[in-house]
């Protein structure tokens, strides 16, 4: 950006402002509540971690909800049972998630494509099974509760609105950090690795270590969101961290646009809106329908987006603004960018 410091300030101030504006919007729409907004923000934070791992570093992770769960459970156990300060517990959760993810990344660094996907899927499921079985620690299937409000000094985040604004603030911070990363040395290394491991290695990038780092980074995003989630719902159980939540994050990232940091918030907004909208509207049109169309909708959305809008909503919007700018003569016509057929080595 050519503008000095007030350019980015305007941008991020604007993004935060949009978040604030969503509150009256939610009040206006009959099927959207402020509670939905909280979920929207939290899912966006977690999905952004996934976007970094998948869209930028070119890895696959079908077990992302496990890290969301690590943050949630760590916060739950440390604040309710050991009376830790919420921020410390959140940090502890992030560290745990990072370590676990780094371990995962280190172990699976040789796998690519489908095999990596399967391995992360298996990992997520193993985590789910362990949490369910380890009754003494996690409360097993019943889960664990008694999580106190998130309180920082005088501020108590005990309403939907306050929690939402906090989460949205964390989201904006996460967006800034992600954009900063991508326009820097380590960020470029990440993207390079995602594009061609062989070429990245030939410029001195330690691919195995970079994979570890990006998995850890994605896990931290998910874990922070999970910690906030625990403070919000005050009760955590394994159901929120199994396969379906992992797939939900996948849908959010993909529908929003996996190659853009804006994909996560966009995708989250769309998914939440659609889910709530469907739940509200479908029973009105189809008598006797229960509204449990969520799963089917996820699948169909995924397939349709990938077939017809592979870069997701963010990509689609970027293409539209590009066309618009060209049409207005504002920008020079760029040569069309062909999609590179992926070169699979080994």
């Amino acid at each position, binding site marked *: 950006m050519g503008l000095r410091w007030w350019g980015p300030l305007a941008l991020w101030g604007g993004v935060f402002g949009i978040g604030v504006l969503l509150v009256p919007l939610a009040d206006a729409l009959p099927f959207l509540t402020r509670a939905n907004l909280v979920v929207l923000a939290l899912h966006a934070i977690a999905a952004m971690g996934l976007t970094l791992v998948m869209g930028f570093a070119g890895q696959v992770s079908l077990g992302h909800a496990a890290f969301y769960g690590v943050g949630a459970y760590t916060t739950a156990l440390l604040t309710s049972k050991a009376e830790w300060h919420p921020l410390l517990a959140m940090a502890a959760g992030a560290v745990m998630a990072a370590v676990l993810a780094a371990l995962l990344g280190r172990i699976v660094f040789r796998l690519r494509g489908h095999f990596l996907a399967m391995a992360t899927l298996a990992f997520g499921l193993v985590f789910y099974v362990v949490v369910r079985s380890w009754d003494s620690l996690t409360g097993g299937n019943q889960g664990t509760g008694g999580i106190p409000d998130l309180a920082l000094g005088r501020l108590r985040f005990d309403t939907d609105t306050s929690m939402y604004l906090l989460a949205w603030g964390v989201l904006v911070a996460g967006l800034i950090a992600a954009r900063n*990363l991508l326009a820097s040395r380590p960020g470029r290394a990440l993207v390079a690795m995602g594009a061609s491991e062989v070429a990245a*290695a*030939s410029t001195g990038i*330690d691919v195995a270590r970079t994979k570890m780092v990006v998995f850890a980074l994605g896990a931290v995003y998910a874990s922070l969101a999970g910690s906030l989630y625990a403070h919000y719902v005050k009760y955590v159980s394994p159901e929120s961290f199994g396969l379906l939540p992992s797939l939900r994050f996948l849908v959010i990232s993909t529908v929003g646009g996996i190659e853009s940091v804006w994909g996560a918030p966009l995708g989250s907004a769309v998914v939440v809106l659609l889910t709530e909208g469907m739940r509200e509207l479908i029973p009105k049109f189809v008598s006797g329908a229960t509204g449990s169309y969520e799963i089917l909708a996820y699948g169909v959305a995924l397939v349709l987006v990938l077939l017809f809008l592979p870069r997701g909503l963010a990509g689609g919007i970027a293409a539209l603004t590009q066309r618009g700018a060209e049409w207005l003569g504002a920008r020079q016509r760029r040569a069309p*960018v062909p999609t590179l057929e992926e070169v699979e080595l080994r």
Partner: protein
Amino acid sequence: MSLLQVENVVVQFGGLRALDKVSLIAEPGRVTALIGPNGAGKTTLLNVISGLMRPLGGRVYLQGRDITGWPPHRVARLGIARTFQNLQLFGQMTVREHLLVGRYRLTHTSLLEAMLRLPRHFREEREARAATDALLSRLGLADVAEWPAASLPYGKQRLVELGRALATEPVLLLLDEPTAGLSGAEAAEVGQMLRRLASDGLAVLLVEHHMDVVMSHSDWVVVLDHGVVIAQGPPAQVQSDPQVIEAYLGEEAA
């Protein structure tokens, strides 16, 4: 002590001996060409030197240091850069970004410093910009610096990959068929560029099929056939070697 010393390298794929006790050296200021019929093992040798493949036997030394079996990123950090036969560009990255990635081994900004925009990030970005500007002009890529590399014509893409390798400020440059797919004129330009690079002090080792480039712009030629070095010497000498001619019989001279 030579800059690069390859000693009796052996590579085996199942029952096939791809490289059989291959030895060669490379020196700064010299362009060494590696030629031979298809399947002779030339790319395999480059893969061994650059760490992509571990040899079954033999040693590779860089500036006296044994780097045999080192992983590619460690080899790269010592100053060996390479290009690839089948272009390995980075997706949608711009030309400049490719060169910036090349500076990885010369910079140190960490993840945290980058995300929090600490001073080291800004300092290194400034230096990197300056360095890449210079390199872009040198390669004639300044006018397409902000374009996605994938959208450029093939010849320019090859230059980008070369630029990425040069951005690492290597001591040894490995080029795998840098003129493949280029016209005669473009190939000659590449050849001249290689000469210039060598005279700047770089050691250049290239795998090449374009005989004009080999004969006009290299100082030393090593001929590989079926994994064995069958001849080596100055271009003119190798050109008239009967064994070399026989190896190429049936192969159309480029």
